[in-house]
């Protein structure tokens, strides 16, 4: 069976599980099935009260810098494997932003780490992974 190289959305947050998701994509690189890797970091929005005191440009600069801190190490890891990468930073509820970027970029797959808050706590808090699974239109690979 031949398959077209796939465009993968790889949301990262710098956690151990997220790093393992990066490693998984790197391991898949040898198969030749990984086309482009779109690394995404989602920043939680600051409260409306804060944005009343701090200008939009400062706020975006802050989100950008915080996002790049997470994206850079993942980028160099993926680039080492000889994969084509692009970086993205979004602000909002993680699951919504992940799915929107996936639609926007036309990605074929999502590979991401789980938050590790399973069981009762995960149910109570509505974990990001559960939400992505519910909303995504493409296959989702969860790494833990």
């Amino acid at each position, binding site marked *: 069976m031949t398959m077209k190289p796939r465009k993968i959305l790889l949301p990262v*947050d710098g*956690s151990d599980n997220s790093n393992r998701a990066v490693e998984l994509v790197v391991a898949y690189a040898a198969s030749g099935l990984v086309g482009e890797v779109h690394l995404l*970091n989602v*920043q*939680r*929005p*600051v*409260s*409306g*009260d*804060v*944005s*009343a*005191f*701090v*200008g*939009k*440009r*400062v*706020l*975006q*600069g*802050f*989100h*950008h810098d915080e*996002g*790049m801190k997470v*994206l850079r190490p993942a980028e160099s890891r993926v680039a080492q494997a000889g994969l084509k990468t*692009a*970086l*993205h*930073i*979004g*602000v*909002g*509820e993680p699951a919504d*932003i992940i799915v*929107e*970027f996936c639609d*926007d970029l036309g990605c074929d797959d999502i590979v991401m780490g789980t*938050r590790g*808050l399973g069981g009762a*706590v995960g149910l*109570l*808090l509505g974990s990001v992974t559960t939400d992505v699974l519910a909303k995504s239109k493409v296959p989702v690979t969860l790494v833990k």
Partner: protein
Amino acid sequence: MLTSPEFWEGLIKILGVNIVLSGDNAVVIALASRSLPVHLRSKAIWLGAGGAVVLRLIFCFFIVELMAIPYLKIIGAVLLVWIGVKMLVPEHEENGENENGNGAAAGIWAAIKTIVVADAVMSLDNVIAIVAAAKGDIVLIGVGLAISVPLIIYGSTLILKILIRYPIFVALGAGLIGWIAGEIWISDPAIAGWSKGLIDRHGHWLETAAAALGAVSVVVAGKLIARSVVAKRERKALVDLAAGENK
């Protein structure tokens, strides 16, 4: 004083409340000082935070006095429930109108002004919760503020990371605020006679039950409201802040 369990219980509550409710203040401090040169940054942070502590102490004094007036503890409890619920509803970042804002302020005094003014406006919830947790004990309030403010300044980035990565702590914080709300309304001067009679007759578990009821209602109401608010929220255009990084 240091040997009484009430003092330690109060202190721990104050620290907990301060940490979970000061996230926004920590963000403003970080953002307002961001545009300053490095050598001015810590000066702005400390002067700004110092001003904020003084303002908070003054607010606390007022609120302690107010709490002695009948019905105001009940109103305070209602406010606390609202504050706790609000913590659980996901934030919506307003980014459109405030094109420049004070945050892009150039000088150190502008940064300090932003920190202090933002703190004065945003710490009201915090102050109500502190006074309620301390049950009006002004020494406890002073000690609590003196410990928690440096903790917030030094630990702000760490605290934010923990609250973002482990939302369970946000829920615990909201529960703590609900617990405090449940505790204070029954000691309101307007109903203290009635509630004291009930407690004398049935035992102290009633106080604990009132507090626990406050905690549970805040968390449940917060979760339910969060769900409906998020469902109704309008989609915003997707903005990619890393767009400039891709060649």
